[in-house]
């Protein structure tokens, strides 16, 4: 816990550039995805061990709050994957070091390009699920 406190405190104290903030986002997105995975595995295990609780949780996941969280999860996943490729590439090809600021911008642009249509499609499906045929008509 002390390590986490020191890292957060010093990260806020130090004026790093893009690389530092992408590293922060990578950590946050990684934690978000880990949280989802734990919840998912727990919930799926309940489908076998405790069906009523599993059904209660599925009902909870269908509420608007979880729909919004699902959108956030999609963005986190896309960012984490794209940024992971950036870091791996820079690690495997050290001679690309001079292009790291370009790589940072590219990672963010690619994240937006993939995330934007994904989010739009997800929002349409979400509205559809919550409001029914009205949204289906708009989607068409």
């Amino acid at each position, binding site marked *: 816990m002390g390590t986490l406190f020191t890292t957060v405190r*010093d*990260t806020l*104290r*130090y004026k*790093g550039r893009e*690389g530092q903030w992408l590293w922060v986002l990578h950590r946050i997105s990684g934690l978000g995805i880990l949280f989802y995975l734990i919840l998912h595995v727990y919930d799926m295990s309940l489908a076998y061990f405790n069906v009523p609780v599993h059904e209660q949780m599925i009902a909870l996941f269908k509420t608007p709050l979880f729909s919004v969280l699902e959108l956030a999860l999609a963005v986190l996943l896309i960012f984490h994957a794209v940024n992971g490729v950036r870091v791996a590439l820079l*690690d495997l090809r*050290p*001679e690309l*070091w001079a292009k790291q600021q370009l790589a940072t911008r590219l990672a963010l642009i690619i994240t937006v390009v993939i995330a934007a249509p994904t989010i739009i499609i997800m929002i349409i499906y979400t509205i559809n699920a919550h409001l029914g045929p009205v949204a289906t008509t708009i989607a068409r």
Partner: protein
Amino acid sequence: MKVHLKIKRFNPEKDKKPYWGEYDIEADESDRVLDALQTVKWTIDGALNFRRSCAHGICGSDAMRINGRNALACKLLIRDAVHNGAITVEPILGLPLIKDLIVDMEPFFAHYRAVMPFLVNNNEPGERERLQSQEQRARYDDGTKCILCACCTTSCPSFWARGEYVGPAAIVQAHRFIFDSRDEGAADRLEVLVEPDGVWRCRTVFNCTEVCPRDIQVTKLIGEVKQALVTGKID
């Protein structure tokens, strides 16, 4: 020009925690930040503590956090550092604070020693030098520029999180010998660097490369050591 200096002060005998000391001084825009600190020490508060030796970017004593980012106070000009008439100066992060801008550098030098920063070759060189081609010398040239100022290591988030991490400076020093054609200690150094607190703690953040006052391509050198570990080849 008038410069408002904000310096993080801390006296372990008096203060419970660091506080900001604020000083207004007159400085030339072509002065270095070190000149401004010396003006404060010599004319306002003689108790101000900071390290400096050569004052010309060679000895690496005066690494500090200027406007939030690591730099050598003797290399950074006032005109490049001043922001809205003010400059903030703080000690580097990740090492124990001793007094004002002085930190305990021993953990940093312990990591430096851990990578065996000296030529290892037990073969008798005979009556002459160990010869090397220009290409062989150029292979590790970048690492020879390091002055051990700790700007890189103390700008690294992995080092803030875990002081046991050897840090960028030690890896640069290891690289300088691993890729030296005369050296035969690469396997021993790589053994240290493959440990959990070795190169794999580097998260390719690039803070180190951005602050190196000697313009060493630190992250690139770390990447080359990672490659040497993965491929088992040193070339």
